[in-house]
């Protein structure tokens, strides 16, 4: 029991029907403030409300979203797990600090924009410029796992972390050759793994195809296993994904634009 006699809740359901984003998000903050032991918030009838989970700093909290949340889902978020049963609009996980976003559907454009830490798992596809400018620092290591495919400019300006594209549909069947272009334009840190073959012509400036080693396989295995368990994919699919050939894309140099300038010293 809390001070004012109300029972402290571990799970709260909010019906977002006809609610504006400010009202909904303030409600989420209030619920969290009132119930320190809260473990789960369930949002029903979500329809385009932006900024859900924005700036929330709390470990051990799950926010389940039924419907389609608006842009900037979980922006600046640090800690919680957001599970979306539906698609998301643009920039889910924007500048996210820590925590997990799971999308049972598609992610919009710039999924994982400037992500600094945490994990995003997208069951289906993502839009243009996903994983742009992700960056890592010490133990902060952002990971973006995409079940299907990504539109062009995946991992643009990437400065750290890991992007994994599995190239399967929701049943686990192969989607065929990746069509994305300008992959890793301006990349100067981090790694992109794409299941299947990528041609050099699909890469952007500063990106390079490196040898995919057993060490790399070990690195991505944990994320594949996690992906399969989240989206209920059987052992057969999991085995296929782990044993597949991946294209590893990494920066040519840590300083792609180092030779762009001459000093005007005189």
């Amino acid at each position, binding site marked *: 029991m809390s001070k004012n006699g109300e029972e402290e809740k571990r799970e709260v359901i909010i019906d977002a029907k006809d609610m504006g984003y400010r009202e909904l998000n303030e409600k989420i903050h209030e619920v969290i403030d009132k119930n320190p032991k809260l473990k789960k918030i369930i949002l029903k009838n979500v329809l385009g409300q932006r900024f859900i989970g924005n700036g929330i700093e709390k470990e051990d909290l799950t926010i389940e979203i039924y419907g389609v949340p608006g842009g900037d889902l979980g922006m600046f978020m640090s800690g919680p797990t957001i599970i979306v049963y539906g698609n998301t609009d643009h920039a889910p996980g924007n500048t996210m600090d820590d925590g997990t976003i799971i999308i049972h559907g598609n992610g919009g454009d710039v999924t994982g924009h400037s992500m600094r830490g945490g994990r995003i798992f997208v069951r289906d596809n993502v839009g243009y410029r996903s994983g742009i400018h992700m960056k890592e620092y010490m133990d902060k290591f952002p990971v973006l796992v995409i079940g299907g495919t990504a539109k062009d400019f995946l991992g643009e300006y990437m400065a750290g972390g890991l992007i994994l594209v599995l190239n399967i549909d929701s049943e686990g069947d192969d989607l065929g050759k990746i069509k994305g272009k300008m992959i890793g334009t301006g990349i100067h840190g981090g790694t992109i793994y794409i299941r299947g073959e990528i041609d050099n012509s699909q890469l952007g400036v500063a990106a390079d195809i490196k040898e995919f080693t057993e060490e790399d396989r070990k690195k991505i295995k944990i994320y594949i296993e996690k992906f399969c368990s989240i989206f209920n994919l059987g052992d057969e699919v999991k085995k296929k994904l782990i044993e597949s050939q991946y294209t590893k894309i990494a920066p040519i140099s840590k300083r792609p634009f180092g030779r762009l*300038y001459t000093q005007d010293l005189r």
Partner: protein
Amino acid sequence: MIPSTVPPKYKVEINSNRCMLCERCVRECSWGVYRRDRNKIVTYSNRCGACQRCVAMCPRDAITIEKNLTCWRDHPLWTREVREDIINQSRTGCILLSGMGNAKELPTYFDNIVLDACQVTNPSIDPLREPMELRTYIGKKPKKLEFEYIEEEIDGKKIKKAKLKTNIAPNIKLETPIMIAHMSYGALSLNSHLAMAKAAKECGTFMGTGEGGLHRDLYPYANHIITQIASGRFGVNEDYLMKGAAIEIKIGQGSKPGIGGHLPGEKVSAEVSMTRMIPEGSDAISPAPHHDIYSIEDLAQLVRSLKEATRWKMPVFVKIAAVHNVAAIANGIATSDADAVVIDGFKGGTGAAPKVFRDNVGIPIELAIAAVDQRLREEGVRNEVSIIASGGIRNSADVFKSIALGADAVYIGTAVMVALGCRVCGRCYTGQCAWGIATQKPELVNRLDVEEGANRVANLIKAWTLEIKELLGAAGINSIESLRGNRDRLRGIGLNNVELEALGIKHAGF
């Protein structure tokens, strides 16, 4: 081989009668101009950028730096600078990188504007004896105030009491309309940042972090700090957003509108890496646009996202470079829940910018302030949103004129650096600053004494504040609010009709 050596720009000479061979110059010059050779100091003039560190430190005044008079054949079109740039670029095939603000002799409208003063018909005010209100609130103001009246019984009498119903958005309170501009930690040293933060606190004003994050040593001054979000999102997390007094979204910079920034890997030291939250030694690249902002609606979304992340407790500013359509863009910003529009003019400073941008892109701040103020008035939103002007503001008169043209407050950057010792040598991007300002090298950073630096910056802001009070008093005004947008107190000199119309002022004599 085509020789590409050109004559040094400066000539460094040591008067051997005065020199006592103490080698101070050898130690002080971070550019390697000096070397001791037996009983002589040898100079390499080609390395000199006239930053005057050696001159300031020589105990015997033995050093003279002059312009090298070795002449190039005069030509009005093919100037020495033009020829030197071609030689450099044809040798390297690279973009010319430069520092400081626009170095072209383009008009400075401030210098063609004069101020008014009272004579006879309305008395001037002496600010030394009478109160002069410079306090400025930056942030969203309500369109109108609504009250509800509650009847209360006090001592048996029923009294109607008014209670404010309108929700007042958070504002920041400035004791003087002068703030310290956003210059990032990384471009600048920690000691300069500390000195500026201390000065901001002492003067009751604010400093900007730039986009390099907030070093933990600056946390004690966080109430006087405006944090910045730029396209690189360096050092940005919830803590950073909540720490400062306001948040500024940087879209563009006056010295390089339309492009991002590259902090070279060699400037990303361990401390810079920690503050920016990127690996040591890697380039810190800020993309040209924010990739979650491709339209004015997207900008509104980022503004609201920051508002949501701070639960609408933090004012959010949007900084743009002064470009052709600045008024329309500012209007878009004003209608986006942003609290202030920051306009940075084309003479704004920078640590590093491609020369072609520094010298050619953007418009003068004076015209931009006037255009934005005018447009926001026409749209009926000027009273709701603040305007902050920056870019080439050199003295209290420039501050005064900016406010009379329509700004609420100004940011000053280069002036603050000059107060810290900078001699405007324009080589900030090399990381070799001999004054310890634009460098990360510990032995150079240590040259800048934080306390003394803070004192100098505070002195400068206080001196300008006093001058503004005097100017206000002379104009018969006792509050900065009465000066804001009061263009009737300005007159142009030597300006044509188009310029006068753009500035919204009359010519002297009318």
